[in-house]
């Protein structure tokens, strides 16, 4: 019946057949096509946690960038010095000119919060980077040695991992004290200290995923084809090992900020208290918790919410990138 001689009607018939078909056919998009990251991003967009996390971080970063210009007053000038009496537990709460009230030295709390965001972000990012870079190097060496180094390589690997194990075990603030003890107390010290804490985490992570990748089929394939080992590591293993590291980076931004706060609480924080940083502000204010709770609450909430933001985003990214949870 479909072999009809006359052409023109058939053509038209064919045409609208196809149209009809086209409009009916539902293409269930196949995930196989999209690349890991494109796909991950697609899933992120649909993930509320990611959106919220992203929003929080976005806001935070925005404040960190433009805060200093938004700040109505100088964060360090003790403009209302005469009005605050820490020694009598008399403080000034929120009011028209000072939205968040004054701190214990008569400075505008709101301005300090705004400006503090930048410091906080700075501490978080820098220390995370320190941890990431150092950790990545160690992990990469260890992983490469393990995958390609043969017996000696494996020995190197075990040694490195033992050390990182121990580092993992040491309470972060002890590491911090050690660093502070050698470098003296400074903002850099804080960053390094918090960074050092992250090193073993990144190292283990990168190594782990490299080992996983190392034994994966495509690497075996690459080996089989006889690609030089270094190239395999650089072109095959490394790129594919990075996604977990990136996730971890996001997460450790959260921990870094919290760690920094803990350090300031132990008096190992940023030495110049005049420069506002949420962790320092919190540890300063908690002395007056009974008389001026809000003074501690502002920085505390700041820290917690920011940390939450990074954690949410990080978790979401992990899910998005996790092949197990895909599809």
């Amino acid at each position, binding site marked *: 019946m479909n*072999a009809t001689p006359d052409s023109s009607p058939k053509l038209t018939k064919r045409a609208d057949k196809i149209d*009809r*078909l086209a409009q*009916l056919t539902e*293409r269930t998009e*196949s995930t196989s096509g999209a690349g890991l990251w494109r796909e991950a991003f697609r899933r992120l967009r649909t993930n*509320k946690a990611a959106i919220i996390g992203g929003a929080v971080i976005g806001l935070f970063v925005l404040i960190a960038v433009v805060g200093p210009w938004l700040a109505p007053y100088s964060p360090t000038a003790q403009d209302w010095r005469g009005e605050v009496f820490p020694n009598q537990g008399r403080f000034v709460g929120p009011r028209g000119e000072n939205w968040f009230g004054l701190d214990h030295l008569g400075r505008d709390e709101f301005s300090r919060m705004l400006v503090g965001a930048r410091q906080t972000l700075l501490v978080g990012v820098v220390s995370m980077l320190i941890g990431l870079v150092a950790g990545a190097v160690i992990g990469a060496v260890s992983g490469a040695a393990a995958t390609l180094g043969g017996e000696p390589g494996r020995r190197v690997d075990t040694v490195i991992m033992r050390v990182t194990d121990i580092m993992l075990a040491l309470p972060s603030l002890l590491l911090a004290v050690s660093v502070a003890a050698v470098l003296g107390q400074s903002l850099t010290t804080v960053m390094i200290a918090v960074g050092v804490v992250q090193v073993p985490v990144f190292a283990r992570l990168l190594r782990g995923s490299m080992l996983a990748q190392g034994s994966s089929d495509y690497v075996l394939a690459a080996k089989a084809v006889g690609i030089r080992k270094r190239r395999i590591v650089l072109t095959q293993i490394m790129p594919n090992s990075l996604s977990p590291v990136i996730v971890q980076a996001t997460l450790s931004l959260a921990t870094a900020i919290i760690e920094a706060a803990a350090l300031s609480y132990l008096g190992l924080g940023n030495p110049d208290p005049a420069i506002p940083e949420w962790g320092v502000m919190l540890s300063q204010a908690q002395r007056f918790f009974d008389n001026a709770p809000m003074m501690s609450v502002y920085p505390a909430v700041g820290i917690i919410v920011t940390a939450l933001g990074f954690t949410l985003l990080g978790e979401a990214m992990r899910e998005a990138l996790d092949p197990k949870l895909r599809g």
Partner: protein
Amino acid sequence: MALLSVDELSVTFAGQGGGRGAGSGARRDTKAVDGVSFEVEEGQVVGLVGESGCGKSVTALALMGLLPRKGVSVGGRAEFDGADLLSMGEKKIRDLRGSQLAMIFQDPLSSLNPVVPIGIQVTEILTRHRGLKGEPARKEAASLLDRVGIPDPDRRLKEYPHQLSGGMRQRALIAMAVACAPRLLIADEPTTALDVTIQAQILELLKELVDQQGTALLMITHDLGVVAGLCDQVNVLYAGRAVETAGRRELFAHPTHPYAHGLLGSIPRLDAPRGDPLRPIRGSINDKIAWADGCAFAPRCDFYTMECLTGTPELTEPRARGHQVRCVNPVLPAETSAGTAEVSS
């Protein structure tokens, strides 16, 4: 009457995020099974054939009542011995499972609990349905393993899945399935994960077991070879619907639905004249149209016409009694050549 008669069974999965609370707007639902109907007689071996994604396994799970309750809606009826499995209460179906209804899964390794000894995994079902405990249970388990052809059962009972070979694992699973001489055994691609030599053995084993116990077997597979070797009755599924149902001989002799026709055309046959090209079906199962709008196979069909695109085609018996075909213009002897001609031209 039939032991199992499935009537217009449909399974719908709520779309992404659906069924997980109001949080995210439920997206397009997907109909995995869209009105399957077939019957299984006592002791009969029935095949469900179709390429992956056509809803075979989902059908099986639906019958076993193993589909997650959340985000899944099951429609139609599935009468097992007169009782509807689909509307049956949790408690009742639990009692049926393992005793009257049993199932064998695709991947023997992942289907066995890695941290529980084989012994326990076998005896637990005996304890549950036959009240066997302790020594007698162990004895029975051993003899079961023996029956499914696992050498040195007493040692194996103490071992863990990872210590067994692929074939043995599947045998163990089968042992559990037949432990209570069920009346219906559902085998979901029982051989796909195994290498060819083992496949044959497993199929043999299944065959003799069902013969011995008079168990009915619902064989789910994409492998027409298996069907040819085993089944009495065959149902060809496409996009969640049976498109052709016939006895084995009838089907292999005269595949009438263009899909079935295509399937058979796409497997190499020794008796085919040399040089006669294989004729694969174009496109993939992903290009389809909802049965409601017409024949889901249309986009891949060489013979489709406007009629194909107007509503679900009815089941007809264009060739022989009991040979049902769901197609507006089935491949009948006259056209076979024409159809192939168009493809090759």
